[in-house]
């Protein structure tokens, strides 16, 4: 458990005078154990000393709080220059055992809650059974479009990868460094890594992977990962274990982009006549901690532990991923003991809460659910109208109702407790108080007079009636619309809910001539950042107005543009945190949107599985944490 998050929770609780309930809920999301929660509640009594996060993090400044983790296991060489000065060493319990050491006891409670941890000798830890419900695409090659994500993490490695705390960890690249102009990235590759067939991993594999992605004939969705403003970066092999990449302009999210590219073997695929259909895709050879040994289409994929894994052999014999039609089927398999863990959407969660046989690991979706304004709409372009709407929304009631008490209210750019949490400015962004009278007064002052039908009229004689659009598939969003309709009627604003297919909405976004009245308000997750990089250029920057990008709400502000540009071109993690905090402040002043709440998803894990770490962001942890788990025989 990361102490800094607990500290921040305490700090905030004191600053904002949160109710015990709010503290409790946030603490639960953070995955704190019961004693820890009581400690937090006690600390929230008002003692200002406790609220100082530095006392809890052992010297970490609050700004760098969540990045406090050594990216490399202690014995390893120094991390990147960029990260070097932001890494006050944390107790080893929070460190991912990248060198394969067995996790020390106390790495969060395990499923059984015993705190155990007699890790069995390698290869006796049983088989971890998991399910996947996305269907079987039959593609296990990480660069091909519809590849199965699980294989990408288990069988392959990337150059570097974000961990569950949002910190970049080295994988096949042992370290990396930008030059002074942030244009050339030099990667030092890990030596002594072998492919599952015994061949050595070298720079040729990296170059080959990047070349294949760039190749027009490859069926891949990763091409833009290697592009900056539509232009390809270039790459070059310096020696067997050094690669440089040159970007046309400074581009910090490049590391995030590389984090989603699995490296494929040159010695096998260079002779392939068609990489899109190569038999390799169904019998992949990687460098990861599992080897894929059997693939029964639409049934299951079987993995065996890779005893020669560079990061140390897994604690278990392997894993089986069952392919299930939907979560109901998966839930039955979980109850019957056929699988050990599965992803659970909120509707499935109640049956696993307070259940001795399972542990529910909750986490927030990484970006809040938002109400966003179409800024090309003549009335909604008035900040006073946007502010009044924000004031008229009782977020707490909305959140509790639609998420059945599971979600947490959002007031910032990124999801609270999520992987981008560190970029939110909790100190300076003051949540907008729920205040219907204040909202009415603001509209009165701004010349929006109440009409006879209870709907206000603008100075130009326009009724304050808007449609609120969302995409189908989430009942929750439909409920949001209805509740907002009700809440805003209290300030004389009439909403008309509308639900369309995602594809239809996507079509409207791309249409630069779309009438703003068609999408006056949207209820979804705009602006939607990448999972681990705070860049919102594709959604909030003026360069990204339709049809160029996803700034389909037509938000324009020079200062925001400047901050986004700075954030993209700065590679120092600490500086970036400061820049995005300023962005969060500016956003709170201009209200491109109103963050409503953070949706909570979860994974259910059977207590048979041991050594499962408690983490606020289980979603990412589950993709690599499986390596450390074992089952009692």
């Amino acid at each position, binding site marked *: 458990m990361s102490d800094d998050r607990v500290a921040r929770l305490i700090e905030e609780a004191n600053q904002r005078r949160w109710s015990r309930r709010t503290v409790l809920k946030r603490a639960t999301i953070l995955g704190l154990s019961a004693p820890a929660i009581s400690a937090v509640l006690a600390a929230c009594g008002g003692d200002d000393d406790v609220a100082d996060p530095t006392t809890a993090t052992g010297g970490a400044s609050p700004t760098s709080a969540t990045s406090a983790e050594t990216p490399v296991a202690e014995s390893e060489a120094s991390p990147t220059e960029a990260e070097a000065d932001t890494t006050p060493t944390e107790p080893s319990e929070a460190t991912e055992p990248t060198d394969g050491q067995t996790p020390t006891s106390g790495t969060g409670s395990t499923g059984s809650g015993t705190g155990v941890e007699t890790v069995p000798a390698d290869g006796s830890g049983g088989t971890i059974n998991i399910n996947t419900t996305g269907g079987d695409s039959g593609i296990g090659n990480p660069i091909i479009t519809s590849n199965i994500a699980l294989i990408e993490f288990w069988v392959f490695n990337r150059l570097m990868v974000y961990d569950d705390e949002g910190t970049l960890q080295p994988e096949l690249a042992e370290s990396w460094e930008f030059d002074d102009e942030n244009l050339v990235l030099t990667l030092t590759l890990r030596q002594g890594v072998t492919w599952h067939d015994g061949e050595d991993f070298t720079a040729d594999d990296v170059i080959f992977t990047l070349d294949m992605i760039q190749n027009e004939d490859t069926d891949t969705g990763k091409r833009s990962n290697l592009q900056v403003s539509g232009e390809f970066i270039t790459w070059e092999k310096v020696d067997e274990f050094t690669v440089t990449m040159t970007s046309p302009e400074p581009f910090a999210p490049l590391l995030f982009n590389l984090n989603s590219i699995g490296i494929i073997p040159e010695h096998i695929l260079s002779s392939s006549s068609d990489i899109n259909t190569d038999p390799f895709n169904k019998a992949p050879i990687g460098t990861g901690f599992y080897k894929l040994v059997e693939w029964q289409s639409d049934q299951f994929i079987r993995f065996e532990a890779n005893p020669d894994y560079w990061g140390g052999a897994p604690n278990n014999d392997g894993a089986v991923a069952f392919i299930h039609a939907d979560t109901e089927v998966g839930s*039955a398999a979980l109850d019957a003991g056929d699988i050990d863990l599965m992803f659970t959407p909120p509707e499935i969660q109640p049956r696993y809460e307070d259940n001795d046989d399972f542990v529910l690991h909750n986490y927030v979706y990484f970006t809040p659910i938002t109400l966003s304004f179409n800024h090309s709409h003549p009335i909604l372009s008035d900040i006073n109208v946007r502010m009044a709407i924000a004031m008229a929304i009782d977020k707490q009631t909305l959140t509790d109702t639609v998420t059945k008490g599971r979600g947490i209210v959002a007031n910032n750019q990124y999801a609270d407790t999520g992987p981008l949490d560190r970029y939110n400015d909790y100190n300076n962004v003051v949540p907008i108080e729920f205040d219907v009278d204040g909202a009415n007064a603001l509209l009165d002052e701004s010349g929006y007079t109440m009409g006879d039908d209870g709907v206000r009229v603008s100075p130009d004689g326009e009724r304050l009636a808007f449609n609120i659009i969302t995409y189908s598939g989430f009942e929750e969003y439909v409920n949001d619309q209805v509740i907002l309709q009700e809440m805003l009627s209290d300030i004389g604003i009439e909403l008309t809910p509308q639900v369309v297919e995602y594809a239809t909405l996507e079509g409207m976004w791309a249409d630069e001539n779309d009438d703003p009245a068609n999408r006056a308000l949207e209820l979804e997750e705009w602006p939607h950042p990448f999972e681990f990089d705070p860049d919102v250029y594709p959604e909030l920057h003026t360069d990204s107005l339709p049809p160029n990008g996803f700034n389909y709400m037509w938000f324009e502000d020079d200062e925001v543009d400047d901050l986004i540009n700075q954030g993209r071109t700065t590679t120092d993690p600490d500086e970036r945190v400061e820049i995005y905090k300023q962005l969060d402040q500016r956003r709170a002043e201009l209200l491109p949107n109103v963050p409503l709440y953070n949706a909570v998803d979860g994974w259910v894990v059977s207590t048979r599985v041991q050594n499962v770490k408690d983490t606020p962001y289980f979603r990412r942890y589950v993709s690599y944490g499986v390596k450390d788990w074992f089952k009692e025989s």
Partner: protein
Amino acid sequence: MTAYIIRRLLWMLPLMIGVSVVCFALLKSAPGDPITAIRAQGRASGSTLQASDAEALREQLGLNDPVYVQYFDWLGLAIRGDFGYSTRQNAPVFDIIKSRLPNTAKLALVSLVLTLAIALPLGILSAVKQYSRLDYFLTFFNFVGISIPQFWLGLMLVYFFAVNLGWFPTTGMRSADIEPGAWNSFKDTVQHYVLPVTSITIVGIAGYMRYQRASMLEVIHQDYIRTARAKGLAERVVIFKHAWRNALIPIITLLGYVFVILVEGSVVVENIFSWPGMGQLAVTSLQQRDYPVMMGIVLLSATLILLGTLLSDIIYAVVDPRVRYD
């Protein structure tokens, strides 16, 4: 007869083209395409298929061409026996269907044999002992069997026999961790078949039994049965030799459709039990907007339905000398 068969076969060609046009148009009119399906899924899983990549992929797949161009591209290849590549699996549609077909056929065949073996005798019994308690009971069972939604039955079977009692696996066709040996492998296979076969069979029995009862009742009241009885034949001979043979005619003609059942499978049951067959393939390809696979499945089904109808017409003529196609 031969001329009739040839005429029917020739008719199939324009029919197939008609079916393919309608289906292609329907599939295309559904919102989204393979790329939006990937993106929608990516939004849920946090993957990063960006606008420019999505556009490039659409171009690569020819999804930006006008719909009629896409149709004729598809038709041009299909006529030559090439049903293209799955947009999602990057494998030939033919291979994908070929790998799923046997799984569906096996499940359907086992269920069908079991269904007939149970339904036909019960149907006869019900008819012969009309208005008896047994008849009432079986008729009641019929109504229940026909009315039960198959997905509900499947889920209940899973909850009782797999989750609570733990007798059978919840899903799949075989376990991932079978102990070596032919016997273990056989046992594992049988265990996996029990629940899906049961859910198909229970619903199937109800249908066939009703059919058999009705046709048997009709025959039993014919004059020639009375004649047979009047001749003093044993009841067993009357029922099985005289009555049943004639009562089987409508059932046999139904068997022409067996092909279709064998190939299409039960979409519901395959999805509940994660059975890797055609039904599951159809659902996932529809969800993923995998047009080539969908078209392959549709064409295969259409062909088999047409052949099945033809076959049952032929069987009809063979078993019932009164029927002639001239």
